């Protein structure tokens, strides 16, 4: 279990979810004549002018609005994603420049499949908890890729969450402890220069998602000497609607505890955003004194688990930026043809 030398917490949070959605049944209409079951209702789709950088900027502006600190006070701007717009040229510098956080700031891009954002969060805890910087911004954002017709296409979506870590006395939620668990598990990967990732079939599920999340979550609970029942809410990485509900049940969490943070049925898998967007949605409804248990998951594979406690500051800061619900309710459905055009799936000859 990891705890910083000086207690830290989240002083501002923000989400971004694009306006567009495609129904999973619309994707099934193209590939299976609508015959098979679908893993989510719909997934969010980035507009033609959106990418990981633009989504990170909006989520971060929301987080800064809640924190009510000048962008120039940020000591780090760290963006976790597996869909950085450039292979070589950092997203972090563009985001920092757009926020007005530079030039005296650390900026970097993090990569660990779907837990790149929580890696940045753990590093932000360390930067602030060691006293090297007062504030650090950690972002998880993705415009995830799915090969046409592949199972991933039904869920691979887009979204971003931004968390500003600062001293616990300024926090709207303190981060009491964290823990990471990683193994070399080839469940999902994308080789350099390939457009779409693939699943290492037999490794998906039990040895990957469930093993990493259950290991990290149960060990953090054990070391904290707490149980699932001691938490008001919980959120887990959500690659589909079923997995997070199943892993929650195995760990002893109830449907009610995970309900506010379970967004995958509506927006699909936002990859690096997924667990953190769910955390933000919980912060949208949490009360002072509530406790939140978070476990991310990234293929390859690993999990980061966190225990948080909400403070009185949530009440005045929550309304300073759009709630997750505001982004969810502006949903505009698109068909597969528009989706294929916007996501670059048409061969232009």
């Amino acid at each position, binding site marked *: 279990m990891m705890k910083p030398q000086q207690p830290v917490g989240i002083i501002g949070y923000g989400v971004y979810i694009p*306006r567009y959605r495609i129904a999973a049944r619309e994707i099934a209409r193209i590939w299976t004549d609508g015959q098979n079951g679908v893993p989510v209702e719909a997934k969010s789709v980035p*507009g*033609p*002018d*959106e*990418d990981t*950088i*633009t989504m990170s*900027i*909006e989520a971060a502006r929301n987080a800064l609005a809640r924190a009510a600190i000048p962008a120039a006070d940020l000591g780090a701007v760290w963006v976790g994603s597996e869909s950085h*717009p*450039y292979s070589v040229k950092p997203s972090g510098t*563009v985001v920092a*420049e*757009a*926020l*007005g956080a530079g030039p005296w700031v650390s900026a970097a891009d993090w990569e660990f499949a779907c837990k790149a954002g929580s890696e940045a969060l753990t590093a932000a805890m360390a930067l602030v908890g060691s006293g090297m910087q007062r504030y650090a911004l950690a972002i998880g954002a993705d415009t995830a890729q799915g090969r046409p017709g592949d199972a991933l296409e039904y869920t691979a979506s887009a979204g971003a969450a931004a968390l500003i870590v600062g001293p616990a006395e300024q926090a709207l939620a303190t981060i009491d402890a964290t823990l990471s668990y990683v193994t070399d598990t080839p469940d999902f990967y994308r080789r350099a220069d390939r457009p779409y990732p693939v699943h290492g079939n037999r490794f998906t599920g039990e040895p990957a998602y469930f093993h990493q999340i259950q290991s990290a979550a149960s060990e953090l609970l054990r070391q904290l000497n707490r149980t699932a029942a001691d938490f008001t809410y919980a959120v887990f990485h959500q690659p589909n609607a079923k997995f997070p509900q199943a892993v929650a049940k195995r760990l002893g969490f109830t449907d009610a505890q995970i309900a506010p943070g379970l967004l995958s049925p509506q927006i699909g898998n936002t990859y690096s955003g997924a667990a953190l967007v769910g955390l933000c949605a919980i912060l949208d409804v949490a009360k002072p004194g509530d406790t939140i248990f978070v476990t991310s998951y990234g293929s390859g594979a690993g999990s980061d688990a966190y225990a948080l406690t909400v403070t009185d500051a949530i009440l005045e800061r929550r309304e300073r930026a*759009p709630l997750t619900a*505001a*982004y969810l309710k*502006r949903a505009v459905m698109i068909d597969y043809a528009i989706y294929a*055009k916007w996501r670059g799936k048409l061969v232009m000859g």
Partner: protein
Amino acid sequence: MNIARHWRERTTRYRLEGQRHRRTGEVRFPAQPPTLDEDPNDWEPYQLSGRGEIYSFSVIRQAPSGYESLGLYPVALVRLEEGPLVTAQLTDCDEADLAIGMPVEMVTRRLMDTGEDGVLVYGYKFRPCVQ
């Protein structure tokens, strides 16, 4: 268009940075070099709020080179709350949503992709307020 020109305009485009007059408080956008009869120290960099309303709008149906993939798209003159009038694309809206006087907010979006070996150009657009 070249990389240097896009780079030079980054603070203007990414975060709507203009100038404010140190004595009168007047805000102008985009930033301009001082005229011969101005004290160069009179104007300081100033980040505009990004809030404003549609002063007028139109829909581009014959997109210029580089924007063909958008199909039709709206552009507007936006009256920013600090005073300046700025021309920009609108995003995340349908033609039927638009009206003069409608409140809008600035978002930073991808303006242009200059090709596989070129840079991605980011900058301001406006959209109907989310809240």
